[in-house]
């Protein structure tokens, strides 16, 4: 063995350890989801709500959402896809935590809903966007490696620190949830909407949807945590774009999985948890295309109406378990 080669190997190993240590330190300092309980320092990590919610790195935002929910005490929690994230402006509703994430599936949404009831100060009302009942992803939950070293998390940590240094944390402080504003986004053209309807049809047709029995099983943890917290869950179908309401195929598909979801909720033992499906897709004012930024994203004006309607629905249901006011 030549000494130069042996030295090279040792130096490389030390360099790797040093670089990984620096990356881990960066992640602990930025701590975008409150995983490490790092205090917030002005100009260093105070822009912690600037977290990315990329579809690609699914487990991190979902687990991150759980940590963020755990540290929060707001009584109302909204869970769902980017439609929720962009459509409900929680700056106007300080009692609500928006946990909408891009590309969320029903199993992801249920995981977050369970977390909302399981925290030290349980949520009173959890509004879950009703999504097609799908089998859960076969992705292991993130571990310390994912939180401290993994590339997607490190990119998010760098974003947090950059945004904090630029003062974005101070400018944006307030909601501390996943809500983002959509208002500056222009509406799609008519031709683009037509093509998006076709793409949405193809995407819906390719989904694997489980039956009512499997859906009921996947709702069971939520029912249990909701009962323990004596809370309310509303699985809601948000207002739909006029193009969707005019498309027979999409409506038929929605009706089919909604029936499965209703059957599963109806069969579940909800004696100590109020759980219902609320369909807002064809309800309320006649929405125009301008009320939506895309086929699946409604603007906050629509979100305001939906939120008020859901709050009203949560009060009008059956009473809680006997003995609870």
């Amino acid at each position, binding site marked *: *063995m030549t000494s130069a*080669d042996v030295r*090279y*190997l040792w130096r490389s190993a030390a*360099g790797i350890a040093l670089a990984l240590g620096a*990356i881990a330190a960066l992640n602990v300092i930025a701590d975008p989801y409150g995983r490490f309980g790092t205090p917030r320092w002005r100009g260093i990590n105070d822009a912690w709500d600037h977290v990315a919610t990329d579809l690609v790195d699914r487990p991190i935002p979902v687990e991150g959402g759980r940590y963020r929910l755990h540290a929060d005490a707001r009584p109302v929690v909204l869970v769902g896809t980017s439609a929720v994230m962009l459509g409900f402006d929680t700056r106007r509703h300080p009692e609500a935590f928006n946990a909408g994430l891009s590309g969320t599936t029903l199993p992801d949404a249920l995981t977050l809903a369970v977390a909302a009831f399981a925290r030290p100060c349980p949520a009173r009302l959890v509004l879950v966007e009703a999504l097609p009942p799908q089998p859960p992803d076969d992705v292991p939950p993130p571990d310390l490696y994912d939180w401290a070293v993994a590339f997607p998390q490190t990119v998010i940590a760098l974003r947090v620190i950059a945004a904090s240094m630029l003062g974005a944390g101070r400018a944006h402080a307030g909601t501390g949830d996943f809500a983002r504003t959509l208002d500056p986004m222009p509406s*799609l053209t008519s031709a*683009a909407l037509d093509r998006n309807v076709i793409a949405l049809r193809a995407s819906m047709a390719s989904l694997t949807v489980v039956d009512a029995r499997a859906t009921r099983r996947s709702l069971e943890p939520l029912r249990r945590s909701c009962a323990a917290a004596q809370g309310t869950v509303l699985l809601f179908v948000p207002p739909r774009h006029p193009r969707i309401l005019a498309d027979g195929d999409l409506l038929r598909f929605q009706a089919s999985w909604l029936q499965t979801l209703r059957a599963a909720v109806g069969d579940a033992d909800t004696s100590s948890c109020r759980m219902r499906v609320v369909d807002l897709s064809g309800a309320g004012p006649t929405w125009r295309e301008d009320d939506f930024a895309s086929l699946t994203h409604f603007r906050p004006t629509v979100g305001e109406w939906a939120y008020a309607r859901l709050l009203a629905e949560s009060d009008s249901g059956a009473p809680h378990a006997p003995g609870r006011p």
Partner: protein
Amino acid sequence: MSFHSPAFLFALLPLTLLAYHACGQWAAGWGIAVLLGASLVFYAAGDPRHLPLLVASIAVNFALGQTMHRSARSSRRVVLLLGVAANVAMLALFKLRAQAIDPPGAGAAMAFAYMPLGVSFFTLQQVSYLVDRARDERGAPPPWSHYALYIAFFPHLVAGPIVRFRDVAPQYPRLARAGVRAEELAPALSLLVIGLAKKLLLADRLGVALDPLYVQASAGVIASARDAWVMGWGYLLQLYFDFSGYSDMAIGLALAFGLRVGVNFNSPLKAVSASDYVSRWHVSLATFVRDYVFSPLFRVLRRLPVASVPHRQFMAWAGATIVSFVTIGAWHSVSPTFLLAGVLIAFATVGFQLATLVRRRWAVASDARIGSHVIGRLGLLIGLTVFSVFFRSDRLATVRVIVRGMAGVGPWIQSSVVLSGTGAVTLLLASAIALAAPNTGQIFDLPGALPAPPRVRWRPSGTWSAAVALLAAVVITLLRRGAASQFIYRQF
């Protein structure tokens, strides 16, 4: 198990290196047994169902080689024909089965489910062994352990490089003595890190950026001609970095145990003609096809009594070229997109060669030659960009949408799916590396690599160790425990 899985990098590889080194210290002669054991564990972790097939295939082909050694010349030919036919039939059956079951759009996932891991690669190695044994009348057959390692050695088992027994056999006695050497381990691990970076930092990031565009094109949506070209060029780069990254890892891993394997990618995107490109991309497959398909066929066709000698020579070359490329296309997959791509590349190569002949015939002036050289290189890159769409698309309808887009034929559909900023940066970085940087064969002075100036060569210096350590740290951040992306060539 893949080379970029934590289970391999942090468990199987270090344990195998330790065991192999321990053998060198205390149990010389057991090196091959250790490597064989590790290789079988590696295969079983990736595809336990087909492990018996691998073992049976090794046993049968080794037995055929022994039989040939004991047979007379005429019987040897019969055994050879039987052996080659059996290997090719097995490979064809698996490919046809995967294609029959594979619905459009399922792609790699279905191929993984039905194709035995590495079957396309180890079958070719067995065929090359049988042909070489039939040619080598006096050579003694190898010990079974050497032959088994030749087929099953984990660095090249799953996706090549396709090595020939006669090239690696002289190194096996040294492998049997075992023992890891720092002068081999240092460049080997550096090459492994660079291969991992090519895969995880470039190929996978390009895949993440391009996949939504291809999904959209599959639904008939394409936003602009620029998007169409980005999809083609981007996938060409993804394929290049995915497979050349894999090859770097394989060559580095083999070197870590003392086995030197030749270069598999020689900067193919710097090629100046179609034939130059073929000699640089997947060198081991090109060499196999040249030696076992093209050359024998060329010799047969050249003897056919048609046309004048120069014309016959060209026709034999063209015929053998077309058959070779169709064979390469079918070897990848028997799907219509691959077969069509094979045919088109074959005709493009013949066209390039015709153009060269015309240039020579008319003795084109040197400045015009420089112009045609540039046009040739540009034409080649454009052609490769178009052909890569055939390899990536799930069906011919998607190919049509993208190629029409490349030709500037709409209708353009506004879409929210666009190439991300990270994707664009990755594309630019990958393009610069593929078109301008020296390749790993040159950097690590691998057998068969193009010559390179000494300043770009790897050496055990502080600068190299810092660069490799930084790259390794980034690579470690990109490892995934769960649904890690697979190597594209694993599906073939």
